[in-house]
């Protein structure tokens, strides 16, 4: 409806069309590039590109998925541009490593960590760094599934891979992040908080 009117000449409405997706586009690119300036520029380019190619958007896909596909391509393009050949080949080695050992960090002396420990700012920084350090193909799936909360089918469509591969890569990404974060999660657990009510919003998926 909105798209039809924009294509018919009411181009001002494009601003309204993209407003709900501003965050989605920025975060997708930022999580891949881990650079605010690049991510912001990339988000702007993504929206301009979406405007220019709006005619080619087909109603059978969700607009958000279509937009994420453009954002992902923009992020990939920038990643290639900023990368040295040495880094590229390093990545390729990791990518070939399909049958790798993706086992989690095993913890002894683990107690349920208090929810307020997750409030620590440093922990969020560690997570962002760990996400940025994932090999690209795992990072892409993790960003779309667990940050953007796209479903499996949408993620597969946006990345041009099948659903089985989405599941495999997501699992490995999560395990790699568990491994990277456990030392910090653990040290943040001095005691067990009992009977703390879960807050709305950010627990929506995992404690529902």
């Amino acid at each position, binding site marked *: 409806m909105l798209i039809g009117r924009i294509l018919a000449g009411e181009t001002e409405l494009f601003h309204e069309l993209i407003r709900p997706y501003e965050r989605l586009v920025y975060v997708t690119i930022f999580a891949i590039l881990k650079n605010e300036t690049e991510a912001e520029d990339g988000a*702007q380019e993504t929206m*301009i590109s979406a405007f220019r190619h709006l005619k080619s958007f087909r109603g059978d896909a969700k607009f958000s998925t279509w937009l994420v596909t453009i954002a992902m391509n923009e992020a990939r393009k920038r990643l290639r541009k900023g990368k040295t050949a040495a880094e590229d080949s390093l990545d390729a080695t990791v990518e070939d490593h399909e049958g790798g050992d993706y086992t989690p960090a095993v913890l002894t002396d683990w107690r349920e*960590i208090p929810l307020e420990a997750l409030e620590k700012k440093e922990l969020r920084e560690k997570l962002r760094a760990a996400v940025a350090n994932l090999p690209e193909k795992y990072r892409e799936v993790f960003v779309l599934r667990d940050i953007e909360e796209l479903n499996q089918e949408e993620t597969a469509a946006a990345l041009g891979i099948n659903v089985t591969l989405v*599941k495999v890569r997501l699992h490995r990404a999560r395990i790699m992040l568990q491994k990277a974060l456990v030392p910090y999660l653990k040290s943040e657990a001095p005691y067990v908080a009992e009977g703390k009510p879960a807050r709305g919003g950010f627990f929506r998926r995992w404690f529902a």
Partner: protein
Amino acid sequence: MKLDCKHVWEHISGYLDRQLDAALLEAVEKHLENCEVCSAVLDSTRNVLVLTADDRTYELPVGYSERLHDRLRAAMRGETG
């Protein structure tokens, strides 16, 4: 169906996404009841996801939206005008 720890780890992600079929789910849950190691792995992985879903983990730069729409307006003007 009886599972050892390694097998349970393979299904952590599927378990969190509630995608395991009934028989596998039962086996995983049974194992988790008696295995502190796997419970800790599950718990810590879930914590990573809780942290990821926190809107404060990825924040927008101040003024992002204004700059985005300004640039868009300029680009659109260039094309239609």
